[in-house]
């Protein structure tokens, strides 16, 4: 008799502790979500819907041919395009190995007052044939999907 009673008691303890964990985790998750979610925009998204300055986002597209300018002090300017719209980007730091004109790129940062995107990070890719999924979709949406600039040619 007492065995069943204490078994139920034990179960109650565990359930309470479990609920406590769940509650703490939920509150942690909710507070963390507020400032760690980064939305992705293509140049067309920004041109159409606009983007308030100082909001931390990801943008992606192709590095426009002939747009890369290197400046002293390791600063670089280039243009991200999806062939419908373009965004000028400025970045100070080391570029990933596979950063090249005509290749896909994802940049994280903020838009400044003059509609120039100040990148804090340029994301690296492992594989030259690899196109970031967001970039591929953005290009498909803008009707500018050129497989030869993205995925590996079908073998």
């Amino acid at each position, binding site marked *: 008799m007492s065995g069943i009673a204490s078994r139920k008691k034990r179960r109650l303890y565990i359930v309470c502790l479990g609920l406590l964990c769940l509650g703490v985790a939920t509150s942690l998750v909710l507070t*963390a979500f507020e400032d760690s979610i980064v939305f992705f925009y293509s140049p067309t998204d920004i041109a159409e819907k606009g983007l308030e300055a100082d909001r931390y986002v990801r943008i992606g597209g192709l590095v426009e041919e002939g747009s890369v300018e290197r400046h002293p002090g390791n600063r670089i300017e280039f243009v991200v395009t999806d062939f419908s719209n373009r965004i000028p980007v400025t970045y100070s730091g080391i570029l990933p190995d596979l950063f090249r004109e005509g290749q896909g790129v994802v940049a994280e940062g903020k838009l400044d007052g003059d509609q120039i995107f100040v990148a804090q990070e340029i994301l690296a890719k*492992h594989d030259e044939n690899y196109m970031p999924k967001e970039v591929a979709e953005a290009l498909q949406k803008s009707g500018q999907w050129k497989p030869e600039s993205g995925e590996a040619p079908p073998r």
Partner: protein
Amino acid sequence: MIVEIGHFALVLALVAACVQGSVPLVGAQRNRADWMAIGTPSALLQFIFLAVSFACLTYAYVVSDFSVVNVMANSHSQKPLLYKVTGVWGNHEGSMLLWVLILALFGALVALFGGNLPAGLKARVISVQGWIGIAFLAFTLFTSNPFERIFPPPLDGNDLNPLLQDPGLAFHPPMLYVGYVGFSMAFSFAVAALIEGRIDAAWARWVRPWTLVAWVFLTGGIALGSWWAYYELGWGGWWFWDPVENVSFMPWLLGTALLHSAIVVEKREALKIWTVLLAILTFSLSLLGTFIVRSGLLTSVHAFATDPERGVFILIILLITIGGSLALFAIRAPQMRSGGIFAPISREGGLVLNNLLLATATATVFLGTLYPLFVEALDGSRLTVGPPFFDATFVPIMLPLIAACAVGPLLAWKRADLAGALGRLKFAAGAGILVLLATLMFADDGPWLAIPAMGLAAWLFVGAASEWAERVKLFRAPFAETRRRAAHLPRSAYGMTIAHMGLAIVMAGIIGASAWKQEEILVMQNGESIVFAGYDVTFLEMRRIQGPNYVAERASIRVEQDGEQIAVLTPEKRFYPVQGMPTTEAAIHTTWLSDIYIALGDEGETNAGEAGWVVRLYYEPLVPWLWVGSLVMMIGGVVSLSDRRLRVGAPQPKPAKAPSGQAVPAE
């Protein structure tokens, strides 16, 4: 011809898996010994066929048979032999073949060494392994056949991605896969137990070693992957909370919980239902990991070109496996009798807390990893969940776990005295406070949380050691007595102590690397000198060198401290002409307390407009401890695995109340 043999062997393996998945199970249900006995030879045959198949593919790679699509796409005649061999699993098709080979290996091991298992349980376990084999063999054969031919064969191949031509990554996938697939054993045992409707201490004793093997390899696989990312990608980071990293980390977290809950089942016959559920979920997360990596569903810096159609196939496997096993669980679990009762403050209670925290941590990682998918499915907007999310959720859940980890092993089964346990941790508390104060003195910047966290790591390290000291009565009994006790302590106790100490070392490494890292990016010219993190760094020269299948620019950079030369580091920027791809080879000097890490960038201009080279310098405190600590954790797992109790594994009837500490003879 050899390639055709490999292909044919793969088909035969599928046939063997079909026999393995059906006959022994039907035999077990109808209680026919002859049908059940089919399990052993069919599992062995499946493994032999797959071994032949794998050997054939390896042969095609070694001789550079470019008439095979897979070899053509991933190899090159000029590639060093080591990478010809490791290239076998450096691509999707070959890695799936490795996956099923390891799966069949585990099946064969049960068949060979499962002699002391009850015949019915053994037959069912082998059958469940057979089902998983059928699913993944079909997947390999029908969507990712590595033996496909191409005509006419090209003159040379496309080469392996240069980033993968690296010894660290060469052995990362096999270890990770042994870990992933190893959890299939826990899964098979869980499903077999559900079919049988019976779980007892012997069952847990059987599940634990397999889980432990998987855990050791998964630990190694994750650490090796992290190490590779650290030195090969040239970003100076070792963990990015990237989806592909997360999906290997989730089974590790839940597998760790499973290891601990299985102890409770074994010793006290409690938490049975929960343990079965954990076994199912852990393997489900392994499958989810395979699915996410193979489908390219989540954007990841790790994602290589992928194929969505394969994703659909794995998704179906995933749904059947998880859905089926959970349905079986829902039907059978209520019939299971739960065992021993315990007070909230007890060893069992501590292990429950461990499980709750680990499961919660897994849930937050799961949410953060898959949230972008849910959102995209719901309203189409695209987003990423960044590292700050995981820092803000995962870390606060882990800290109490670390704090409790030192206390738990000191609690007695059934009902324990918390104050007494804490009293025995006075040295640990002292060490924790000491380290906290020392950190406070030396660390002038960095997040405040790092300071108490360092104290917590010391608390765990000394706490784990004092639990051992307590058991052998170190310094409290004559030395001979201590030695006798130390020799008689079961290996699993040593395993636990070592693994917990390893965890403390890893934790210190994580804190040091994330709190006090220094980073500097600048353009340097020949002969230029700078001061970085207390070191004098001089750029000596730049030279062009020729590797076996690449050309490289190699810089020589001298690092001095107090006028004494510490090292000349030679970071490289390589270019692989076959793939047309550059890579960065960072140069690292380690003092085992910290790393100096230098990576080379492009040619650049200084502020004055003069030409030079972009150089990235990192000072990475305590990073070597990450790898050392992971190794110590693995050693803990192996030591525990060598425990006689687990090696024997037989469900022996309990000896009449032998005192538990001395039940195990020394040799």
